[in-house]
């Protein structure tokens, strides 16, 4: 028993000491920026592989691209100092920059990076493949003219402008080809290594990444634009919204994203914090499986469009997350058409259902990821569709199983979300308006419309035509036509709300500006003392 009582005393001592410990000063140091968010979906930090939003936010600071877009959606120079556009392609002139390794940034690095993207052929390549850049033609279309000049020929399926926007995406980040080639294993283009290391010319380098715990970035003192103000940036995994809120209030973190609507609300009236509502150009969508006998009928889809209380949901559920919009183009984009007159009208919806031959309604399942605000959105839709005679059974799940069902066309109704890769009609609408082959055998699960089995040959052709139209005015006319056609067809991928990404920033932090495509850069961020 002697041992036992000894342990007892030691344990008691430990507790007493624990409470007597000096209380910690919570405020983050002035030269370190701490961001709280959920890192659960960050699986890779290889820019030619990862497409997840949080991963992009981190990588956009590790790498530079030829060009960038700012919040005003203009194409601006980044690694390319200038460029000339002609009928056949674009010639880029690089600035004098170096990678964090000390190697100079050359045309070869740009060529290698784009070839790497297409030859690794992961989901990240989709946006370039859609406009005709493929593994087997990239070596011909992208080449180094001299060490500081890169020539990219048009593929024949795109205009120069659309190509520039794609080159501003994170997937087109320029990697240090010498460094990456040193880490190639089994022809993997250095992927295994680059997933957890950085080889870029951006303002920060990757110091450490512990999955689901944190990412630590360190300032790149030799950055071409000058050393960033922050010595370190720490992105912390805080999966619980309420906990994240406490940490922000206490000053343990400086920036919080992934907060629930309720927790966000508390900061709107709180002094010392700024709530940013970053537009993504994407949407919360109600996907209807046109392979379903009821949903194949445009009348039924129109009835559903009239069965949702958009305004009510916007006010009570979406809050900072969304704004009503039933055309897949944000209303402040150039050439955006006004919203169709879809609103909650039970009588009209019932009449449409009766016309379609279903006066007594029917039952459907609605699948959604159990996540703010989608789960509340599902419940609201269930309620209002119930009023017009469509009985909804909600099935919720985690990301991987709901996405798998979406890919397999295994659903009646489903609530996905989208994002826009460029700030114009095509950038946000393309996913909704192109489905080259709707057959089951095509198995084109990467296509958003295919997943809903919605066959739209005319709209697909229009989209392709708009992508190729070099004349801005004519392209604008096509943009308007695309949107009108979309509404006319009673979409099986019905946009509900334009999607915003709300973030809360401590007022100590200056010049933290959320980017519409998560390409938020941190080199200009400064912090004042308490």
């Amino acid at each position: 028993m002697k041992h036992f009582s000894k342990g007892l005393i030691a344990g008691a001592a430990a507790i007493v000491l624990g409470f007597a410990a000096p209380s910690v000063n919570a405020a983050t140091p002035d030269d370190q920026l701490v961001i709280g968010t959920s890192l659960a979906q960050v699986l890779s930090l290889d820019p030619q592989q990862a497409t997840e939003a949080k991963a992009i936010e981190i990588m956009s600071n590790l790498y530079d691209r030829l060009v960038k877009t700012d919040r005003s959606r203009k194409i601006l120079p980044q690694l390319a100092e200038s460029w000339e556009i002609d009928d056949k392609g674009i010639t880029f002139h690089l600035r004098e920059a170096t990678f964090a390794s000390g190697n100079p940034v050359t045309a070869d690095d740009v060529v290698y990076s784009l070839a790497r993207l297409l030859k690794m052929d992961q989901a990240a390549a989709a946006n370039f493949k859609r406009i005709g850049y493929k593994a087997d033609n990239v070596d011909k279309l992208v080449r180094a003219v001299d060490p500081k000049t890169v020539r990219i020929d048009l593929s024949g399926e795109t205009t120069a402008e659309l190509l520039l926007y794609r080159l501003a995406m994170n997937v087109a980040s320029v990697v240090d080809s010498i460094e990456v080639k040193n880490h190639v294993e089994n022809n993997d283009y250095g992927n295994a290594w680059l997933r957890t290391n950085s080889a870029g010319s951006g303002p920060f380098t990757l110091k450490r990444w512990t999955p689901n715990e944190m990412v630590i970035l360190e300032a790149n003192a030799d950055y071409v634009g000058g050393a960033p103000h922050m010595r370190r940036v720490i992105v912390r995994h805080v999966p619980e919204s309420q906990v994240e809120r406490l940490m922000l209030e206490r000053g343990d973190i400086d920036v919080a994203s992934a907060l629930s609507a309720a927790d966000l609300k508390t900061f709107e009236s709180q002094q010392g914090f700024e709530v940013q509502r970053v537009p993504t150009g994407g949407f919360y969508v109600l996907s209807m499986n046109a392979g379903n006998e009821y949903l194949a009928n445009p009348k039924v889809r129109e009835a559903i469009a009239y069965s949702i209380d958009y305004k009510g949901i916007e006010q009570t559920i979406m809050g900072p997350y969304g704004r009503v919009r039933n055309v897949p183009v944000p209303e402040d984009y150039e050439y955006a058409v006004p919203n169709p007159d879809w609103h909650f009208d039970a009588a009209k919806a019932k009449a449409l259902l009766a016309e379609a031959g279903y006066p007594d309604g029917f039952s459907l399942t609605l699948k959604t990821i159990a996540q703010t605000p989608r789960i509340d959105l599902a419940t609201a839709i269930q309620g209002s569709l119930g009023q017009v005679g469509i009985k909804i059974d909600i099935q919720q799940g985690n990301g991987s199983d709901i996405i798998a069902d979406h890919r397999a066309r295994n659903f009646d109704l489903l609530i996905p979300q989208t994002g826009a890769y460029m700030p114009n009609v095509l950038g946000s609408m393309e996913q909704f308006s192109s489905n080259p082959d709707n057959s089951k055998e095509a198995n084109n699960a990467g296509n958003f419309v295919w997943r809903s089995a919605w066959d739209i040959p005319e709209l697909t052709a229009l989209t392709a035509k708009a992508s190729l139209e070099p004349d801005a005015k004519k392209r604008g006319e096509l943009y308007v036509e695309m949107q009108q056609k979309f509404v006319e067809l009673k979409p099986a991928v019905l946009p509900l709300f334009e999607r915003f990404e709300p973030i809360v920033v401590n007022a100590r932090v200056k010049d933290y500006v959320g980017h519409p495509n998560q390409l938020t850069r941190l080199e200009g961020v400064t912090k004042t003392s308490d």
Partner: protein
Amino acid sequence: MKELTAIELARRVLHLIVSLFILLCVTFVIGRVLPADPVGAIVGELADPAAYEAMRVRLGLDLPLYQQFFIYLKGLFQGDFGQAILTGNSVASDMLQAFPATFELATLAIIISAVVGVPLGLAAALFRDSFIDKFARVVALVGHSIPVFWFGIVGLVIFYATLNWVGGPGRIDVFYEGMVEPVTGMLLVDSLLVGETEIFWNALSHIILPAAILAYMAMAYITRMTRSFTLEQLSQDYVIAARAKGAGPARTVAHHVLPNIAVQLITVLAISYGNLLEGAVVTEIVFSWPGIGQYMTNALMIGDMNAVLAATIIVGFVFMLLNFIADISYAVLDPRTREVAR
């Protein structure tokens, strides 16, 4: 309780192995029939079918289930748990990183719960129906019936956000990150090993709240069991005799009750310890604690079955091992069993 012979011991070891194998089979089958899509998680939502299929083949998911199981088992015997999708590392190295964090948390929790729970249970029994007994019963009931999740949030609001007594979520304040190289993986130990007392205090201020909350859950059970063990002893003739001879409560407990309930207590503590490792899952999420519970939850979310399997097997193994040790210690330590054995 049977006597502890070599045969009996072997029987129990065999039992342990069979249980573990069943756990392995069940987890494996459940993992593979779940509608999760690990391939989609790797190649991304928009990958084309060819890239998707290539990854499926690379992961061996195109093989029949029994073959997949056989391959998995073969790897397991070589200490290879496969590769984790979540991190890209081998699952084994991930486990080596995550397990110490959970182990540290659960160990501190069991110490706290024993230090508080056992005396409370003893006192409740000695002063039966008094104020202290009622208090202990309420404490135990509350601890047993309120979810850890709620306790965690409330604890953070009070002790972290309002009173500023403890550190926040995570194992350490961010600006200390990366200053102590992991040796054992347990920050409290590692920081002391290199003499970084400041980091030790910081780590302690972070672990004390989640550990205390976890401990409370276990304490409820420990208090109740200690009370009933003690009551049983107090009604025994020898205790009544001792008290009649004038032994005070302290002497009664130290010399008569404790030695006799020690073995039972060890069993209770071992079971609680196992439960704590399991119960750490929710606590780890609330406190952003990078342990095995959080690792497993995240792995489950993306359908990373290699990681889920390994975490389940390890937690299951430790749980069974603790039970096994408790069982054996019972046989070894209980004087009555020893008597029979002779």
